[in-house]
């Protein structure tokens, strides 16, 4: 329910349905029966935030509690923000229209570093001080979780506590605790002291960081009885963990507008550049029966005509051959499309290929990530050229004519030879198409290569590596363009902007960056992942005003003995394991995937020694 004043703004904004609430399956509760109100905030626009599975899970999970009401909040687009500020309308929850500053808890999900300024902006729009120390009351408590919480230091001054790892259990524990302390009339500090004892909870105010003269960390001192290392949370049984049977169905078109079925967490591959491949370990699978049942329930409650499987690598799901026919069985009858992202066709049976051909499908994507075998070995992307070609052959036989290949640039140990390899590999795929005798005559193949620049991330074997500078990347890009030129069937796109430099700074940053982020936000930075908003010059000003050198974080090589800002977090992966993987990378030595052989990364210990990679 919106107030007159709120509704008035909607008449002059683009896409007003972003701000109305009232979507099917959105949850409205009777305020008088609620003890706890939670504003779940996604620090980007409605279309992106509404596409995010984690938010859907936690929204339904909190709303399943009788004593609590969770509402959705997204970053208002520029036009709406202006009107809100001009008319003194504060940031409100979409379900109730109430100002979130009156809620008990405000939670942000941290999906990418470039959304940090939006967090400050949303707090400000809510009418709250952006710094944790300036919010004296117990409520609203400002919390955050999500993948970037594995190094939350750059935003540690703004958030009261972080939740590390998977949120299903810890969210409920925090809510219980906050309700208890609210009833006791506790101070914020009293509450935080007890919260810090919950596994997975990191309260930055209880850790003092001292620095060496060169700017690296000297020591971290824990206070208030907070644990020396904070261990992330994992859900051990995916078959029995809460999963929503309803999604809020948006009115406007969003980025991923479909039902989503999560099939497993973690990844068996161990690609050394991929943060997700490490921070979501150990591997835990859902049974195909459970996944199938959940998928069906979601389609029925939402009316979606598409369901997508969600995981880091669909075809590594050990029951994929069972799940797909089960789903097709009801989906086809109801004209529901089953989409299978991050699919590797190479290990698919022929029957499965046939099943897949029954449904419409988009172009095939494949990610060799690097152009030569040597570099693929170094990053542990265990894909050979032969496999790429076999996959392409199979796909072309199956009727696909468009293939998209993903690569990275700026990987550790990369040389020009590796870049040339990108162009050559793409051309090999083109050739494969024309060697297929059954190809549809007269139909041309479209092979596109998409190249992103590599950003080293915490909790990966490359966490010590320097990121390529802008100049180095520009050189490399020019060279690759030259290499692609002679090949006419290849379309080349490259996404490089200063955003990946900043992303690198924040990914491995420390607390000194809090001032920089606040300063940049005060200069007007927001929606930094959007080209139309991103303004690097403002960021440069912010860095120099705060006396912080961004290159120190992005382009500097760290030694193994350096204390890293995230060393106080335990994500299950042994640091020694990451060091060994780093050394192997520099020798282009591979590590087998987890299904072939367990490399004792340590993550299974988070789950009582259990890891579903081996079944």
């Amino acid at each position, binding site marked *: 329910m919106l107030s007159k004043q709120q509704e008035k703004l909607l008449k002059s904004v683009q896409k*007003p349905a972003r701000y109305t609430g009232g979507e099917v399956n959105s949850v409205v509760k009777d305020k008088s029966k609620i003890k706890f109100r939670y504003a779940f905030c996604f620090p980007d626009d409605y279309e992106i935030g509404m596409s995010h599975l984690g938010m859907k899970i936690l929204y339904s999970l909190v709303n399943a509690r009788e004593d609590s009401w969770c509402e959705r909040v997204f970053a208002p687009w520029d036009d709406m923000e202006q009107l809100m500020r001009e008319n003194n309308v504060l940031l409100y929850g979409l379900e109730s229209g109430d100002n979130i500053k009156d809620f008990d808890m405000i939670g942000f999900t941290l999906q990418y570093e470039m959304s940090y300024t939006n967090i400050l902006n949303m707090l400000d729009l809510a009418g709250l001080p952006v710094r944790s120390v300036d919010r004296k009351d117990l409520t609203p408590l400002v919390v955050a979780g999500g993948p970037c919480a594995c190094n939350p230091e750059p935003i540690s001054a703004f958030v009261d506590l972080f939740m590390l790892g998977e949120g299903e259990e810890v969210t409920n524990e925090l809510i219980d605790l906050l309700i208890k302390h609210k009833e006791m009339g506790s101070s914020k500090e009293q509450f935080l002291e007890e919260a810090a004892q919950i596994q997975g909870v990191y309260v930055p105010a209880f850790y003092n960081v001292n620095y060496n003269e060169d700017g690296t960390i000297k020591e971290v001192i824990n206070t208030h009885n907070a644990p020396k290392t904070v261990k992330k949370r994992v859900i051990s049984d995916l078959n029995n963990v809460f999963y929503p049977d309803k999604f809020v169905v948006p*009115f406007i078109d969003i980025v991923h507008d479909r039902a989503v079925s999560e099939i497993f967490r973690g990844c068996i591959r161990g690609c050394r550049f991929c943060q997700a491949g490490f921070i979501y370990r150990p591997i835990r699978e859902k049974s195909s029966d459970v996944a199938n049942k959940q998928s069906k329930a979601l389609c029925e409650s939402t*009316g979606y005509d598409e369901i997508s499987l969600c995981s880091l690598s669909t075809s590594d799901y050990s029951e994929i051959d069972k799940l797909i026919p089960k789903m097709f069985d009801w989906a086809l009858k109801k004209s529901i499309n089953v989409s299978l992202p991050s699919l590797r066709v190479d290990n698919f049976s022929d029957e499965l290929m046939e099943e897949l051909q029954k449904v419409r499908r988009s172009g095939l994507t494949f990610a060799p990530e690097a152009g030569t075998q040597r570099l693929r070995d170094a990053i542990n992307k265990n894909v050979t050229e032969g496999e790429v070609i076999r996959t392409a052959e199979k796909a072309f036989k199956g009727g696909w004519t468009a293939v998209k290949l993903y690569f990275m640039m700026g990987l550790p140990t990369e040389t020009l030879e590796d870049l040339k390899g990108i162009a050559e590999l793409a051309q090999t795929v083109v050739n494969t198409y024309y060697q297929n005798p059954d190809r549809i005559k007269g139909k041309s193949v479209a092979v596109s290569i998409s190249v992103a620049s590599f950003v080293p991330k915490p909790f990966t074997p490359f966490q010590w590596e320097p990121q390529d500078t802008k100049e180095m990347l520009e050189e490399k890009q020019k060279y690759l363009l030259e290499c692609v030129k002679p090949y006419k069937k290849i379309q080349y796109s490259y996404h490089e902007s200063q955003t990946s430099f900043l992303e690198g700074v924040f990914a491995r940053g420390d607390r000194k960056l809090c001032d920089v982020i606040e300063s940049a936000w005060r200069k007007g930075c927001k929606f930094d992942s959007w080209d139309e908003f991103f303004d690097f010059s403002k960021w440069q000003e912010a860095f120099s005003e705060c006396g912080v050198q961004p290159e120190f974080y992005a382009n500097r090589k760290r030694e193994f003995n350096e204390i890293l800002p995230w060393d106080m977090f335990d994500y299950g992966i042994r640091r020694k394991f990451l060091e060994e993987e780093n050394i192997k990378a520099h020798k282009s030595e591979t590590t087998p995937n987890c299904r072939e052989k367990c490399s004792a990364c340590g993550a299974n210990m988070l789950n009582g020694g259990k890891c579903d990679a081996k079944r």
Partner: protein
Amino acid sequence: MQSVRIFFEKVGLAKYISHLDLMRCFSRAIKRADIDIWYTEGYNPHPFMTFSLPLSLGTESFCESVDMRINGEMPFEELKERLNATLPTGIKITSVSAPLHKADEICFAEFEITINTANTEAVSSAVQSRINADEILVEKKAKQGKKKVLKEVNIKDSIKSFNTVVLKDRVLLKTVLAAGINGNINPSLLIDAVTKDVRDDIESIDIIKKKMLLSDMTEFI
């Protein structure tokens, strides 16, 4: 197969659902209601639905309609109930029937427009004098070759009737405007034109479409 015409209201915050989004909204409601509707044939089949007239964003309506075909038979009353159980708040089916008229027989639409203002007298007299002028010029988007341009057009002749009622804190306008394929007037364009001189006095404007009418002023059914 059964052809049905479904009349519905679109009120409250549902007025911010755009025409394109409304189609998606209906097709999902139909799926949730487990109604077996007819799909178009061809490479990319989609549920067949046609809306009589698009409604502009921000306008409420008591008289929208959509036609579709149901595979098999279903009593009108059941169809109505099932859909009402799955449609979002603000969209409500008022009746289901077999289509009688063709959508292109629609000639007029009746609107009720509420201008919320503290200065009712000033607003109503400003509106009156604009309405009684020989010309009412509005800017309309038009295509000139490939370019989109704004063109000034006189819509005086498209106004079939126009009444003003002054209440305590608002001015009520009742108007019948040309609608349908032979010329369609967006009421907010008209309102913009006739309130030009008193913009600052106006707090907000609500528009409700009340009826769709044929050339003889009887209702479209």
